[in-house]
């Protein structure tokens, strides 16, 4: 299955968003997530199944103006 993660294609077999974050070694408590442009809250990551071609955003705090 191929996913578009933060703008880059990645091959993965993770079945849920939660698994994917684990697999990629993200610190789950320090990022926020969206699937296909829609916010997925922390407590819904385990319930959010992934399928081929989905676009994910995984973001973290940064400087801003």
């Amino acid at each position, binding site marked *: 299955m191929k996913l578009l993660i933060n703008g880059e294609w990645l091959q993965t077999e993770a079945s849920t968003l939660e698994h994917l974050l684990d697999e990629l070694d993200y610190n789950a408590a320090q990022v926020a997530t*969206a699937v296909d442009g829609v916010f997925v809250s922390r407590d819904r990551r385990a319930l959010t199944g992934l399928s081929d071609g989905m676009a994910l955003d995984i*973001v973290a705090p*940064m400087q801003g103006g």
Partner: protein
Amino acid sequence: MMRDTWNAYGIEMRSRLLLGTALYPSPEVMAEAVAASDAEVVTVSLRRQSPAAGGGNTIWDFIREMDKRLLPNTAGCHSAAEALNLARMSREIFQTDWIKLEVIGDDYNLQPDPFELLKAARSLVDEGFAVFPYCTDDLVLCQRLLDVGCEVLMPWGAPIGTGQGLINPYALETLRARLPEVPIIVDAGIGVPSHAAAAMEMGCAAVLLNTAVARASDPVGMARAFRAGVEAGRGAWLAGAMPKRQTAQPSTPVLGTPFWQQ
């Protein structure tokens, strides 16, 4: 001096300078500039995190340590939908309802898109956000933002990062005159402290800036200068400026001028 505070969404604040955290030469300088500015609120953003980054995120560590109130932005969003989702992500991460709502309508002048902005503001207010809308100085747009529940307005002074100051004082004065009860924060375009002072002299509640401090030769010194500029403008507003006159009027008494004979 009497305690002079202002209020946004139920939070009472003393400092009238809100500062951005981007574009500084280093995180250390950023932290020092924020301290020098006396800001109580700093703006932050969310950006894509590469997995490789691991736990490292220096700048964020610095920001967190400053223990300031955070105002996350939705910089870079071009539609209400994008801004909505980014705002929700912000709330989860930053644990605050506050959101500086930016919905860019043009990549050249980075101006707000009045239509998408209003749409996003309406939804975010419904979802319980405390929306700080980065808007134009258009009175009707501002009125609409208030109508959908915004309690603060953040009109631009000039396009982001230009440092041109207040390019349309007439429009800002109109906002101030027509919406006297609403805190107005001039956001974007301010280049030097006299611009910030001029905004405060009009009766604006506060000023938000970033580039002018971060890109000064000495950001810490400039932060201090802006702090003074904002205090100057605020103080003048409270003290009630003299009216402008068309013709000159001597300050030194004319009566008793020597050498003058009838």
